[in-house]
């Protein structure tokens, strides 16, 4: 059976989602996205002129296999998020939305309360909601209850490139979740992405690490391979890590005597 990821009405052969920010040009962004073979690419509503058909970013993403995922980066409240999502839906003709509510413009950390509120409203309005959130297992279940189609917990502070710092919580989320778990934010190296996939994440979203690399195209390919390797390893079931050396059974060997 082919290993594909399904979210709402779409299926994805690639489990690497990418972003469009921080590249040195839209052409370089396009080249890297194509090289990564990513099929879902997030774009900040605030960066594009949605009503302008020749918008530089949008023009560079016109490919059949690329699905645009508008995000609400910059909004501070649920109300603003819902408004922005509706504008994106109307202008970009997609009902998919990456819900980012970060009232804090410094660390860009998500507001769990406003996110949950906005998620419920957006689901009711018929959106496919992909919420960017803390690695909070209870929040993930609450979001699932209101009908989001996946959850996107962060691996580390956004843009930090620190890797999977929230591992213990991600493991609980992955174990408990009935919707796909996409690890978003903090992934700074292909090894981090592979590790996330080995843990059982359904996909990862990577932006800074590709965009800010000296060679975004090569880095896009490296991430593609890492995500595939991690996924393959997960499916093949990793051998368990031995916590201690087990040379003999000093405590129970008497049973055999």
């Amino acid at each position, binding site marked *: 059976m082919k290993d594909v990821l399904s979210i709402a009405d779409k299926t994805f052969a690639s489990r690497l989602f990418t972003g469009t*920010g*921080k*590249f*040195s*040009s*839209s052409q370089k962004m396009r080249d890297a996205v194509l090289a990564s073979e990513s099929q879902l690419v997030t774009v900040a*509503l*605030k*960066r*594009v*002129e949605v009503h302008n058909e020749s918008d530089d970013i949008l023009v560079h993403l016109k490919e059949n296999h690329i699905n645009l995922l508008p995000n609400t980066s*910059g*909004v*501070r409240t649920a109300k*603003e998020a819902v*408004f*922005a999502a509706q*504008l994106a839906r109307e202008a970009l003709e997609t009902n998919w939305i990456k819900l980012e509510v970060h*009232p*804090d*413009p*410094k*660390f860009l950390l998500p507001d769990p309360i406003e996110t949950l509120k906005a998620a419920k409203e957006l689901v009711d309005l018929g959106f496919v909601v992909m919420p960017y959130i803390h690695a909070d297992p209870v929040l993930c279940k609450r979001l699932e209850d209101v009908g989001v189609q996946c959850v996107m917990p962060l691996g580390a502070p956004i*843009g930090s*490139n620190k890797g999977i710092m929230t591992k213990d919580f991600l493991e609980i989320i992955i174990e408990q979740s009935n919707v796909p778990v996409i690890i978003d934010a903090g992934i700074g190296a292909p090894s981090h992405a592979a590790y996330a996939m080995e843990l059982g994440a359904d996909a990862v979203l990577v932006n*800074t690490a590709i*965009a*800010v690399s000296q060679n975004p195209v090569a880095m896009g390919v490296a991430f593609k391979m890492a995500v595939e390797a991690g996924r393959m390893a997960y499916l093949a079931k990793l051998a368990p890590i031995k916590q201690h050396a087990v040379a003999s059974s000093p405590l129970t060997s008497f049973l055999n005597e």
Partner: protein
Amino acid sequence: MSNFKDTFETYDWDTLENEIYSFTSFDVENVLAKSRITLEDFKVLISPEAKPFIEQMAQRSSALTKKRFGNTIQMFIPMYLSNECQNICTYCGFSMINKIRRKTLSDKEILEEVNHIKNLGYDHILLVTGEANKTVGVSYLKKAIALIREHFSNISIEVQPLDQEEYETLIQEGLYAVLVYQETYHKATYKTHHPKGKKSNFDYRLNTPDRLGKAGIHKIGLGALFGLEDWRVDSFYTALHLKYLQKTYWKTKYSISFPRLRPHQGEVQPKVEMTDSDLVQLICAYRLLDEDVELSMSTRESEIFRNNIINLGITSISAESKTNPGGYVVDPESLEQFEISDVRSTDEIRKMIESQGYEVVWKDWDKSYSNFV
């Protein structure tokens, strides 16, 4: 409710100055070995002793800026609406005592200027006025914002300090950011440079960012005008102000500007010189202190300086600026606030930025976020 004045008053200018001028290179090495830079460390990084470490600071500043802001530089342009002013500021071309013709743009003139600016490609605009409450008070600003908001994604102002309720009114109209520079945090020096007008009230100006924070503004721009006093001490106070505001109004974004006194109508010229190397040191020190703060550079600076500064920590720049009302098309000969230094066209600046491997960002906000479409 708290305000910055309380924090400000726990510091003493002379004590700070002594401290900043008595660090050793050993102190600098210790600070540079740390991964998180505090306000105390910032003092060390702006001290004369840190100057020999400027390349190391620049390398780190450049890398941190790329990580956070990517390979991008944002562009904005100022639009002067008026040069009427009831203040005396010894260093400013608009100062009340300068006997020159005054001008305030009408609606029609504003739209003519807007049309020109839009054709240059800009989507983020900074509106500037002097301080003349009868002609360019809140009602004028409110009307101006309402008039132009359909043309720009992002509107900032640099005008006289206002009350909290007045800011709330303008935010309702679509205002995104307010730039308000303390000029100098040295109270006595401030008095000598602002002898008359509302601006002579040091404390009212000092607490302006607090009023903005309480009004829920999206972004506040801070800075000191370099040339009035020792730039190191003024910069420490600016950084202190920044850190206080970030903790108090955590939903607001901040930017820092670095105006150095430029030639202008009037007599006072810089008392304290800030060299190019000083300015680079300061920019890098800010970046090491704060990975996320926006650092902005105007056309006050020279071509060569601007070409080299964009990969050292700066995140937004202006280009082709006119510092007089109607300067773009309506009345190019009206009184300007100061002479700019880098006179290159917007397109030349864009090419300069792109040739260094950066993308020019024209739009990084959306009207819909203020519930305007």
